[in-house]
């Protein structure tokens, strides 16, 4: 990765709506250079998408989230990646991680209701042949995600004018 690529990723991670002109000014690169570097990052799938971070708790949308620790038995011709794929293809699954430690996969699941979520675990996840056990924990509150503190006060505590 070049310095420019890292600079652009830093800036876009903070605010992906920054116009190319501003990105160019801030990195000291030309407009064309910035455009082509970003295109390159997209093509190489370093940048996957440009999405806002939403605090759903402040919306009317009903949702339940759970972290599910999943233990699996890798089978012949079917390593962890293949089992993970069987799991992450479900729409309810938001994130899947392969973990070290006492379980194998950490699955973040979202559903509208508790009932829906229970149905997913008992009806879709647990019956998978490779899955040998699950432990479901519900998310009660989100404090911080991707470096963003959810109820961080935005007020500037600095003096308005100081020398």
């Amino acid at each position, binding site marked *: 990765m070049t310095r420019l690529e890292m*600079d652009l990723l*830093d*800036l876009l991670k*903070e*605010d992906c709506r*920054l116009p190319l002109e*501003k990105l160019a*000014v*801030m*990195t*000291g690169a030309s407009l064309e250079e910035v455009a082509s570097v970003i295109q390159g990052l997209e093509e190489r799938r370093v940048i996957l998408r440009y999405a806002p971070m939403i605090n759903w708790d402040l919306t009317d949308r009903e949702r339940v989230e759970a972290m599910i620790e999943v233990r699996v038995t890798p089978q012949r011709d079917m390593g962890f990646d293949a089992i993970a794929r069987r799991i992450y293809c479900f729409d309810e699954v938001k994130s899947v991680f392969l973990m070290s430690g006492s379980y194998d996969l950490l699955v973040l699941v979202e559903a509208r209701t508790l009932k829906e979520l229970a149905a997913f675990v008992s009806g879709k996840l647990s019956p998978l042949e490779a899955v040998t056990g699950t432990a479901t924990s519900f998310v009660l509150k989100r404090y911080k995600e991707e470096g963003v503190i959810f109820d961080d006060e935005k007020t*500037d505590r*600095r*003096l*308005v*004018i*100081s*020398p």
Partner: protein
Amino acid sequence: MNYDKYLNPRIVAVPPSGIRRFFDLAAAMKDTISLGVGEPDFRTPYHIRNAAINSLVDGETQYTANRGLLELRREISLYLSGRYNVSYDPETQILVTIGASEAIDLALRALCSPGDEVLVPEPSYVSYSPGVVFAGGTPVGVETLEKDEFRLTPEKLEAAITPRTRALILPYPNNPTGGVMTRKDLEAIAPIIRRHDLLVISDEIYSELIYGDHTHTAFAAVEGMYERTLTINGFSKAFAMTGWRVGYACGPAEIISVMNKIHQYAIMCAPRQGQVAAAAALKTGRENGYEDVLRMRDSYDRRRRLMVDAFRSMGLHCFEPRGAFYVFPSIRKTGMTSEEFCAGLLKSKNVAAVPGTAFGPGGEGNIRCCYATALDKLNTALDRIAEFVSENS
């Protein structure tokens, strides 16, 4: 009761800071976007805050040595030798103070006798000249010009020296101009300082915030200047630790000892938790290559470019700052004075900036805008300034 006969006329005669008037004006407004701040928009990195929390939990609530915690003085010594190649003995040559401000005040009080002149390059930080007066000396402004990139030139320095000149305050990287002095620039003034037997109070509080190909040279690292220099620095700007109030002075043991005499009678010691946090900041920095400092500096640098570009797009002449976190654009083309411009901008666009005149008469025609402000606010402020400029050109 009339208190005039009680108050010290020398102190009373010093005008209040030009910043004060704007502070009152701006404080009366709501939802102002302020580019008038003089401190980082980052919070102190958490691991540094945590060191102070742990110290409180451990019951470390006592005075420290007058000169500061030895552990901190050792870290300061390692920092200055590792980073700027100047070496100070933690036992005798380093004094921890309540911010760099106290260090400057102590230096002036230790050095000035009535009638002594102290040279103050201008525009510069608002406290130097009043500090000289409070110490009983006479401040003498030395003009620095944009055509010289706001550096102190040998010619201007030489011209300001009289038989009564005792010391020079060297404020680089400079607040408010963003000017820096390279090693070559410093070497050019060194012979004059030696010839006239001056001392130098080198305020290097912005030493870490320097951009582009420049690197900071400590004045004490210039050949022959070590014995003539008090190096002043602190944690406020580089480590985003303004409210902690921790700074330091380093220099010849004889001078530090006299400064410590004032410090021990007047202050006793800098607050302990601030010192603990400062020691943690330097120790971690030494171990991880000053990761926090560099991260913040990179962020300022991007916003610096944005700001310079925006002012130039407005048709305003804007010197490219190479240090600190301010831009100092010229607003002359609007025909307004700095004060008029800032008052108008505040009133009609709710954006606060500081008139250049707050930093000395040489600041007329310029305004100081701080880019240590969140990017979205900075962009909004710049849009509003552009409107204001186009409405008033």
